[in-house]
């Protein structure tokens, strides 16, 4: 490796010492607004086809080195029509710019570079800083929700810091990761995709912590979602699930330093809770049940007392965020510095997050040919966690299950520990803390040795260290218990690229070539112990009995070479081809390398001569792409037959067979075809983008079940095929734009059809011969050949017979039965995947006021409430019930939820069936923001403020048309978490999302 480092430096040195290769001269000028002649600061001035550029200063002036042989200068600014000006031999160029809404010459971010929006033929979606900043969101991905067609973002739980489920154009994998690759300023982030328990563990539930939780949303300039093959092929073996490129905020050279300060404070509550029985209701119900089953009883026969546990474990959540930033630059250097402190206290006890982020981005133009810079984000996250979902350490789960007559304090006022424990005092007395420290950054050097050739070397790191500490006091865990785990995952990578632009006649070419090496080493240390003399001793080292001492490591590496060619003829006929060859340590030596590629073409129809200049359609572009990408998330050593160490029997070390060998293992391959149309009507007032795509994934990495008489339960194989087919549609329109009133509507809609085309020979087959793969954590969710990856397979519940009061189910043939045969009477009951997802944003501006209303919706898909198997378990008096059970049958003719309490089939009532399966559709008013910009004439009196805005916001304001909400469950749940695709849309007392009311102020000076 040392050679590699030396060589890379050598390479750069070769170029940087030759900065005089390029013949350069200087052009300067002033940019003004055409409407009022006011100087325009912050306008981007770029030599077309290069990345050489600058930004106008506060007086609208710029100075820029340009090639001696002239070329074209591009002037662009948000909200203004870009202009292109031939330099010729001039040394002074003054430009006037017009206002324009279409912003077509904005650049879009893509893999290893950027492209003008007009000439872009990749399917990408960008969300800018205005949709991200100052929202009370902890997870940056939330900003994507409902913003981009074909991008499905769902919270997995309302527990602070849990992962967001992000699906870009469907689900391409059954057992490997389904989450996109995140790239911050060119650094692909560690996401622990190699499997394992994550950096933090899931603490009882399926909802792992968010891999980009550490990033401060306020530092994000834009998030760009790469969707089609032409966009993702350059990320090769990791592009199949789509890529999200995050660009952080930068300063601009020559820009006056601008400070901004933001503060917001918020109050939160759960969107919904389940209704459980009060102590009186419970006693009455149990007495009624007992009487009906032949043992007459009255409420007095049960324990007295009572407590509202749900009330006891919840409160009003609070959020406070303080952030400051400064950006600006001198003639040669630009910077951005930002810092945020945020504290979010959940609506549940025992869950609080404190985030401290800093970011420093700097770029410097050393000479006309050499520029360099770095981007660095550092963060510390302190998360007071609790166990969640299927765990008696979860306050909410306990509040739902605890017998309501159990009280948290005894007669003497001391805490009790009965039944499911005492979450109120557990959260107060025990400790469960997760701290993450993360440094992500890159440093780069860019050299232009000759005209139109740019060489860049980029060195990135992502160093994450997490520390989980837990300590249970003697009262809850006799003797006391302590746990500490430290995980480190340190990545570094080096990317070297060369970019060359040239053209002749009406043809323009741009060539990118590069190679990169990326490696990451993960280490963890876990210790655990019990038996403490006193609760005052916090650390594992004081434990009398150390129970765990573990340290493990794992390493992976990826070596890649890649290239891309862009060609356009007359700026109308566009063509692009890209290729990447990846070698990964994760695969067997015979299959280590994979090649991924894409070709795409575009036609700017509206630029044709035959196209009417001033017709209904103002812009029309047709693009199509086809290409491949891969998925390597199978764990680091999945191809090897293994005996794992760390086993022990009575002090003797042992090893255990842990994995069956498969040396043929290789990547999952996804081939994607995309056809898209970009059209604008009525002078760009109505903008439509429609894409149709089909993604075929082959060589699925499937954990194929094998008979347990092999000693294994499954073996990973490359087998099977899945298709995702869909339509992404975005429509935006300026409804009103006059007299200072502006109303814009933006809507997007994604339709997805997901189907498993083939599964391996020898797969499990149901009674009808359908091949399936059981999704790991819940046997009733299956990937089924000819159906979706997440198909429910359940006994159908029919209802309570109004005549007899008995619960009734349907057997396999649809005949009514009181005694369904659980495995054999199951039928397909729908998919867990939604068909349609989308969002609608209304934005209104009037005088200093702005109003934004954002609604998102999900249609189709079914969610299983595994918790109702407990809450509806009438036959058991061991835990509390939801109020639904009070609606029970008493006399013929009653139409009720619950059966006759004396029914001989009552014990089956709560069993796994479609009784617990609900339509997951919903419409949610996700965000309402009302802001007011203080007028300039008032600000001027302050002498230092340049702008000020106050705002109020409601997040998750209302939810409509949701069966799940009626059932007391938030529709954004995923008990299966995000690490694999198993058990989607399943809830086990999963924490609901929070409804947050926020007020804030942002100041600029």
């Amino acid at each position, binding site marked *: 490796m040392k*050679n*590699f480092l030396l060589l890379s430096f*050598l*390479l750069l040195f*070769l170029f940087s010492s030759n900065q005089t290769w390029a013949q350069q001269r200087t052009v300067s000028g002033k940019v003004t607004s055409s409407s009022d002649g006011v100087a325009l600061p912050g306008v981007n001035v770029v030599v077309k086809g290069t990345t050489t550029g600058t930004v106008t200063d506060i007086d609208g002036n710029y100075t820029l080195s340009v090639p001696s042989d002239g070329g074209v200068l591009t002037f662009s600014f948000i909200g203004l029509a870009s202009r292109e000006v031939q330099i010729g031999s001039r040394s002074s160029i003054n430009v006037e710019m017009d206002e324009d809404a279409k912003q077509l010459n904005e650049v879009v971010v893509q893999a290893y570079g950027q492209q003008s929006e007009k000439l872009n033929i990749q399917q990408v979606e960008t969300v800018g800083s205005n949709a991200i900043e100052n929202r009370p969101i902890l997870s940056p991905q939330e900003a994507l929700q409902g913003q981009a067609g074909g991008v499905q973002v769902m919270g997995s739980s309302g527990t602070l810091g849990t992962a967001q489920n992000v699906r870009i154009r469907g689900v391409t994998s059954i057992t490997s990761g389904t989450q996109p690759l995140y790239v911050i300023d060119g650094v692909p982030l560690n996401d622990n995709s190699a499997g394992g328990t994550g950096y933090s563990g899931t603490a009882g539930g399926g909802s792992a912590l968010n891999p980009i939780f550490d990033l401060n949303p306020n530092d994000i300039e834009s998030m760009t979602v790469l969707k089609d093959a032409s966009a993702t092929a350059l990320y090769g073996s990791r592009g199949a699930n789509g890529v999200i490129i995050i660009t952080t905020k930068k300063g601009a050279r020559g820009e006056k330093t601008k400070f901004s300060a933001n503060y917001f404070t918020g109050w939160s509550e759960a969107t919904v809770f389940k209704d459980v029985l009060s102590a009186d209701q419970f006693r009455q119900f149990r007495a009624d049940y007992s009487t009906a*089953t032949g043992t007459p009883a009255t409420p007095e026969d049960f324990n007295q007392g009572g407590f509202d546990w749900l009330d006891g474990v919840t409160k009003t959540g609070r959020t406070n965020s303080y952030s400051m930033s400064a950006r600006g630059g001198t003639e040669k250097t630009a910077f951005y510095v930002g810092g945020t402190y945020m504290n979010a206290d959940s609506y549940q006890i025992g869950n609080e997050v404190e985030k401290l982020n800093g970011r420093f981005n700097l770029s410097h133009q050393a000479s006309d040919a050499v520029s360099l810079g770095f981007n660095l984000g550092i963060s510390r996250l302190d998360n007071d966690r609790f166990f969640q979902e299927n765990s008696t350490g979860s306050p909410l789960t306990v509040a739902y299950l605890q017998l309501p007559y*159990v009280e948290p304090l005894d007669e003497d006022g001391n805490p009790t520990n009965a*039944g499911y424990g005492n979450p109120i005092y557990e959260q107060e007395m025990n400790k469960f803390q997760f701290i993450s420290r993360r440094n992500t950054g890159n440093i780069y050097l860019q050299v232009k040795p000759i005209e139109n050739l740019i060489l860049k070397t980029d060195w990135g790191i992502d160093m994450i260290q997490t520390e989980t500490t837990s300590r249970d006091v003697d009262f809850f865990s*006799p*003797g006391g218990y302590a746990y500490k785990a430290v995980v480190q995952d340190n990545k570094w990578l080096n990317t070297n690229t060369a970019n060359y632009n040239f053209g002749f006649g009406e043809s323009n070419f741009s060539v990118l070539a590069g190679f990169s090496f990326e490696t990451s080493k993960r280490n963890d240390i876990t210790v*655990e112990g019990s*038996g403490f003399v006193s609760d005052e001793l916090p650390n594992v080292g004081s434990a009398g*009995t*150390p*129970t*765990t001492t573990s340290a*493990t*490591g*794992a*390493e*992976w*590496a990826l070596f890649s070479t890649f290239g891309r060619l862009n060609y356009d003829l007359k700026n109308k006929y566009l063509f692009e081809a890209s290729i990447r060859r990846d*070698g*990964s*340590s994760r695969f067997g030596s015979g299959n*280590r390398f994979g090649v991924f590629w894409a070709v795409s073409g575009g036609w700017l129809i509206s630029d044709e001569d035959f196209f009417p200049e001033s017709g209904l359609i103002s812009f029309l572009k047709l693009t199509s792409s086809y290409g491949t990408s891969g998925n390597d998330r199978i764990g680091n*050593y999945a191809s*090897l037959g*293994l*005996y794992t*160490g*760390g*086993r*022990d*029997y009575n002090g003797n070390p*042992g*090893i*255990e*067979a*842990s*994995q069956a*060998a498969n040396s043929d293992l290789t990547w999952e391959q996804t081939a994607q075809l995309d056809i898209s149309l970009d059209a604008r009507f009525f002078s760009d007032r109505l903008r439509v983008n429609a894409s149709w795509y089909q993604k075929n994934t082959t060589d699925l990495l499937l954990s194929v*079940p*094998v*008979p*347990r*008489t*092999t*000693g*294994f*339960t499954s073996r990973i194989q490359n087998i099977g095929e899945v298709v995702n087919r869909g339509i992404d549609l975005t429509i935006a329109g300026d409804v009103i734009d006059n007299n200072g009133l502006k109303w814009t509507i933006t809507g997007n809609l994604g339709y997805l059809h997901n189907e498993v085309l083939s599964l391996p020979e*020898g797969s499990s087959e149901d009674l009808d011969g359908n091949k399936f793969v059981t999704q790991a954590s819940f*046997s009733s969710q299956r990937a089924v050949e000819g159906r979706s990856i997440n198909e429910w397979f359940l006994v159908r519940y029919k209802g309570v017979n109004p005549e007899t009061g008995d619960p009734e189910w349907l057997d396999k043939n649809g005949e009514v039965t009181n005694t369904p045969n659980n*495995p054999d009477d199951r039928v397909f009951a729908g998919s867990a995947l939604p068909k349609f997802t989308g969002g609608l944003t209304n934005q209104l501006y009037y005088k200093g006021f702005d109003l934004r209303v954002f609604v998102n919706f999900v249609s189709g898909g079914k969610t299983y409430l595994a918790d109702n198997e*407990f809450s509806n*378990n009438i*036959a*058991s008096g*061991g835990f509390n019930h939801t109020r639904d059970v009070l609606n029970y049958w008493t006399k013929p003719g009653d139409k009720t939820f619950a059966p006759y309490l004396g029914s001989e089939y009552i*014990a089956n009532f709560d069993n796994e069936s479609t009784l617990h399966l609900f339509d997951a559709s919903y419409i949610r008013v996700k965000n309402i923001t009302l802001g007011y910009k203080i007028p300039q004439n008032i600000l001027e009196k302050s002498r230092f403020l340049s702008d000020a805005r106050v705002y109020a916001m409601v997040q998750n304001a209302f939810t409509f048309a949701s069966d799940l909400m009626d059932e007391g469950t938030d529709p954004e749940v995923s008990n299966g978490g995000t690490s694999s695709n198993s058990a989607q849309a399943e809830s086990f007392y999963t924490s609901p999302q929070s409804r947050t009311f926020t007020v804030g102020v942002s100041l600029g000076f």
Partner: protein
Amino acid sequence: MKYKFIYIVLALLAIQACSEKDLELFPEQSLSDESAFADANAAQGVLFGTYNLLQDLHVFGSQPQIVSDYCTDNVNFVGSFPSLQEFNLYTVAASNSTVTEVWQDTYEAILSSNAIIANVPNIEDPTLTEERANSLIGEAHFIRAICYFLLADIYAQPYQVESGNNLAVPLVTEPFTGEIILYERATLNQIHALIESDLLEAQALLPEVIAQGRASSIAAAALLSRLKLYRNEYAKAIEYADVVMASSKYSMATDFTFYNRLSPEIIFSIENTAIDFENQGDEESGSGSWDDYYVGSTDGGRGDCPFSKDLMNAFEAEAGDRRYDLKEPGKTFSGEDAIFTTKYNDGVNNTSDPALIRYTEIMLNKAEALAELNGVDAEAISLLNMVRSRAGLESRTVADFGSGSALVSAILLERRKELAFEGHRRMDLLRKGLPLRTSSSVPASVKGSPGVNVTAGDPLAIWPVPQAERDVNPNL
């Protein structure tokens, strides 16, 4: 300039070459299949790994045993897990996770034993002495036998139903080498024949004692005596019991302090330590262990399995039983008062060591076999009295028993009290043709009468073949 580009090209190639080497990364926590049997120490590690598998919750880590207990009249199951509650209510589905995991984890241990038996003879390592190789192979045979014994007891009707010609579980004696074989279920006789030959192998290869918690020739003989008793082969049961009782290494302890300690009373146990729980892949996390189920919820356990009223009545019918002192009051999972055994007493670290084969079991095996063969047998009564006398109960005499079957009943009652909570009750009832529950012995937590009058031969008396296994193996 031209030269510089040549340098660059060369540099690129060099980078390529060195990076491909950087892609060869190997796991740090695991050994390959070959390395696991490359030398004696690694093979020894596989053996301890196999013992570790026995500690699994679903093998001898308590779940099959506690389930078997509360399906009978000994335990009042009050836990909350629906998958466990199904056993209590006699509504077990083939998809029940315990049904699946017991099968799965026990076969894991069996396949691990198979690998040792097949691979150890091929190891070329001077440190692998004959004695060491014998020990490795002998212990693997014993482990395989006790695992098949567990599977046969729960997935097959007892021998008494069809003289062992009924179906049991697949008979797998080879390690997994990549080829998937869709086995059919073997008969109980075939499984028992393998258990017998494995135990004879173990008896021949192993010393009388290695260490408590490890297999031995005596443990093999003791298990043979149980096997023969379960098969009504009484003379053989006596013969193997005599082998055990002739050994100087094992004896009946003088009192009841031997639980979870080193003692000659214990012929084979699983020795758990604090590091086994929530570690070691034993899946014993929050979901259970011997201590977790049997210890009350205020003492660190779940308190799922208190004494049943019926068992308390059985003890109270004859006052002064010292074994009835092995109990303490506690709270159930849902906070109710209940009485728990103290045979497992470490709710915090889950270190209790289940005694799978104990000296008094062998004495009672022999007593029962004698009574079955000879009717009211003086030696049988003497063995019974030794057990009773340690428990502080009066001796019986020949005159106390009007018939052989009365003596057998007395021995079964003694077995119930002596071996309570040690996983014997279900098989003792089934093989004697007795119902698992009677209308008067249904535990309090059960409404109605599930399990009442279920006897051997009733499909409800055993567990179904797991649905998940039938899904992948149509031959089952």
